[in-house]
């Protein structure tokens, strides 16, 4: 991890694993990745916000822009300095680029022309040539989210002990599952340490930031402490070292690592929020806490939180027939689209939702994110990016809800 290099560790001569490059080298980095045939996704200014989108040069990065985030509030603003990454995090994570809102699973057609009672049906798996991606400017929260999303979408079997007639008869639950969608992409990841966390950020308390953990090829630290505007570049993989070797810079020394560590410490201290690790399990024990009804009354069930969450993975399947272009009822496509557990039909069983109230749905979302995700995947489903707080139109703050839910009540439970 970048910040753990203690001052005094002089890098060996010629060690290209950590390098100091001037800010102008960011464009060379992007061009090197583009020359590898990769589509580069990174932060850029769009629609009055800092968004992740395709960038073709470093000019498109949001130099000198920052964001102001608060419950139910987001604004961009200018910085006195010309930082490339002087904001907390883009409006959306990289989820939409790795787990797109709409994926075609297969196409099918049928032929009524044969005159026979049996109508031949053809099914063809969607041709997928996954794009070679490079993700630039991945915050530590979003880096942790990539791994958690990958774990959630990796084919797996049930967590219960194997014991039924279905076992051992070739009938594994994943018998006809292809590889996980993220695994096939294997993007080149350029992480960046956080220097200006937002008021809604709490990655430090979740153990996911502000410096990148694992899973990156290159990690950048933008040194904006009054000294020269430089980047500390640390490579963690062979692919990362190969790209770093093309940048013009000098080997990083103890002083440089010390500057980066000091910035990380300042960022960790500047987090606007925190989540007590003991609170989520306590909240999970109080399934009849009156606070659930209280937050259900405030929640609009709009699904903004699940859309901006970098780990929310739920989807729906739908058959799409005939209505794009020429109506053609003899052709159909099956799509996997993003879905949200806040929708009333999400849990529908024979026409009626199992989670009938908004309070039921908020409880499901919160407890899945913070409690049952541990049972399912061995980690929290929350990385502390704070987007669900910022983008909630009524400003519901999960750190506040969890703290309230962890407090036992003496009143009558709902």
């Amino acid at each position, binding site marked *: 991890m970048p910040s753990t290099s203690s001052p005094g560790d002089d890098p060996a001569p010629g060690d290209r694993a950590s390098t100091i490059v001037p800010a102008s080298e960011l464009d060379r980095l992007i061009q090197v990745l583009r020359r590898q045939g990769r589509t580069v996704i990174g932060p850029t200014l769009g629609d009055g916000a800092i968004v992740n989108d395709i960038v073709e040069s470093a000019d498109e990065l949001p130099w000198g822009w920052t964001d102001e985030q608060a419950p139910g509030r987001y604004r961009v603003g200018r910085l006195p300095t010309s930082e490339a990454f002087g904001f907390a995090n883009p409006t959306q994570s990289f989820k939409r680029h790795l787990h797109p809102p709409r994926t075609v699973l297969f196409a099918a057609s049928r032929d009524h022309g044969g005159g026979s009672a049996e109508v031949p049906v053809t099914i063809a798996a969607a041709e997928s040539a996954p794009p070679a991606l490079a993700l630039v400017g991945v915050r530590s929260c979003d880096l942790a989210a990539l791994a958690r999303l990958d774990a959630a979408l990796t084919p797996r079997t049930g967590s219960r002990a194997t014991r039924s007639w279905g076992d051992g008869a070739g009938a594994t639950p994943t018998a006809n599952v292809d590889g996980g969608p993220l695994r096939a992409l294997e993007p080149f990841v350029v992480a960046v340490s956080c220097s200006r966390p937002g008021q809604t950020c709490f990655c430090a308390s979740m153990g996911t930031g502000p410096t990148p953990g694992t899973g990156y090829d290159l990690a950048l630290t933008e040194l904006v402490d009054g000294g020269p505007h430089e980047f500390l570049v640390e490579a963690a993989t062979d692919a990362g070292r190969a790209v770093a070797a093309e940048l013009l810079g000098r080997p990083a020394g103890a002083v440089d690592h010390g500057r980066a560590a000091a910035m990380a410490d300042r960022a960790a201290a500047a987090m606007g929020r925190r989540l007590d690790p003991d609170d989520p399990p306590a909240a999970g024990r109080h399934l009849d806490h009156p606070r659930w009804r209280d937050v259900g009354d405030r929640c609009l069930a709009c699904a903004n939180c699940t859309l901006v969450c970098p780990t929310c993975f739920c989807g729906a399947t739908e058959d799409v027939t005939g209505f794009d272009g020429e109506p053609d009822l003899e052709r159909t496509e099956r799509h996997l689209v993003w879905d949200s557990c806040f929708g009333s039909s999400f849990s529908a069983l024979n026409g009626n939702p199992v989670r*009938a109230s908004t309070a039921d749905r908020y409880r499901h979302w919160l407890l899945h994110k913070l409690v049952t995700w541990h049972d399912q995947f061995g980690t929290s489903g929350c990385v502390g990016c704070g987007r669900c707080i910022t983008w909630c139109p009524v400003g519901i703050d999960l750190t506040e809800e969890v703290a309230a839910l962890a407090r036992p009540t003496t009143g009558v439970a709902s």
Partner: protein
Amino acid sequence: MVPARYRVADRTDESADTVTLTLEPIDRPIPTPGPGQFSMLWAFGVGEAPISLSAIDGTRLGHTVRAVGPVSRALASAPVGATIGVRGPFGRGWCPPGDDAGPAVVVAGGLGLAPLRPLIAALVAARPRRSVRLAIGARRPEDLLHRGDLRRLVDEPGVSVDLTVDVADRGWRGRVGLVTDLLDASTVSGTEPMAYVCGPELMMWFTARRLLDLGLAPERIQVSLERNMHCAIGWCGHCQLGPSFVCLDGPVYDWAEAEPLLAVRGR
């Protein structure tokens, strides 16, 4: 998530809105399912639905479908010769009763008989080591599924069949009332029975409570749960019930696992 093509080889009308389809593979068959597992059946241009196996005969699959929504209506109306897409088999099925000689108690409500049918076939095949007691309820006499099976089973030694309906008609000479009324001390007599229960969630809840009252251990009561499912591989998130993905961890649970999942309304 691409289905294998199956052909509707046979249709058996079970009731006004329920049909059993026999499907045979057009190209590659899916792996052989076990009793209690389910398939995702796809109707061209309409969608997919999780449907339990009501018969397993080599590569031929039986699925009993009640026409309640767009997908199940399309499946239930598929004529012989139609192509249906099949993915699966999915989920954890019924747990075999083990080598002890205790009786098997099977309690079904309505459409819940369908996923129990391959289990009943396996249990009956395992006689005379073990007796099989069936308690089957339906709303009305005409809603009783697999009536041909039931008629045959009545005459089988070592098999008892008790039927009840909520609402009788003139021709009905059997019992009227809840399926739980069919369960008494004699149902669970003998060494450590294993109980298999499937039906509407409330019916399973009260059946399990009744079996517990009669002295059965929660680990010896199995239920098959139902939740909304889109993918059956743990990706879509719809079927989550507490920490469980019903498509992966279920649909069959023992009561020790199921009770805390079902005890909280709206979970």
